[in-house]
């Protein structure tokens, strides 16, 4: 899997959404189907972590260090995006107002 496949699938969905090809029955149910599909794939992703003995094994030994680094990367990336979010979204809000 690479980003080209994802891009093609997104573009295909985008085209169908833009052209409004789907009928009302499907359109009304897309959000529900999306939520169920999301929860199902998260469940499967959870299984893929739990089923891999290496993940559990490594986690027992270096889990503490991993969580500290992961939390720091997340916190600082949020803070760094916070610095520019107004600049990026101001433009976006202006576009929305124009529309």
């Amino acid at each position, binding site marked *: *899997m690479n*980003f080209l496949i*994802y*891009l093609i*699938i*997104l573009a*295909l*969905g*985008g*085209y*169908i*959404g*833009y*052209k409004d090809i789907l009928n009302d029955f499907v359109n009304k149910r*897309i959000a529900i*189907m999306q*939520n169920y*599909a*999301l*929860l*199902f*794939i*998260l*469940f*499967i*992703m*959870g*299984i*893929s*972590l*739990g*089923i*891999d003995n290496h*993940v*559990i094994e*490594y*986690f027992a030994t*270096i*889990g503490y260090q*991993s*969580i500290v*680094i*992961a*939390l*720091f*990367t*997340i*916190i*600082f*990336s*949020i803070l*760094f*995006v*916070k610095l520019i*979010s107004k*600049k*990026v*979204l101001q*433009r976006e809000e202006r*576009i929305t107002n124009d529309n």
Partner: protein
Amino acid sequence: MTTKIIFSVILGIITGIFILPETMAGHIGIMIDIGLCLLLFFVGIDIGKQGDIFSKIKDMGIKIILVPIMIGLGSIVGAMLAGILLKIPLNQAGAIGAGFGWYSLSAIELSKYSSKLGALAFITNVSREVIAIMIIPFVAKYIGKLESIAPAGATAMDTTLPIISSVTDSDVAIISFISGVILSAAVPIIVPMFMMIS
């Protein structure tokens, strides 16, 4: 939705540990790929319904490139600070942070230098993805929509994109995809660069 997301992941992990045999692992990868494609298709429909995507991207301007740049910088700075706390060499901590949540590639790259470092990169980036899945809805609600892309890192173009899309809007979903693509492309370049500094 947030509770359901957290519950689904935890239930999956428990099922994986206690119920399913490890021989199932190969099939699970295929199921994730199929499910992901289906979800991305739905996200695409949502984005398409909002109108002309290309003019939106054009209108948003070059400023959206700032999002992956800041996520990348924040990830690396954060990992280095954690490295100081944990007494891990700065270049190694930076390399782990530069995995941006793409655990398979960063672990493979860093295993070339040491298996312990590879394992640390793997678990750190797995943890980043799991934590991201759980906190994205909170970040979107209490901090900001654009900030909700940050925890995702490179996964903003695939595994976490459906979550970001469901808790924000189609404009943020587009920025998320672009950000994920740029960060994913940067991983194989930046991780070895850090290891060259020693």
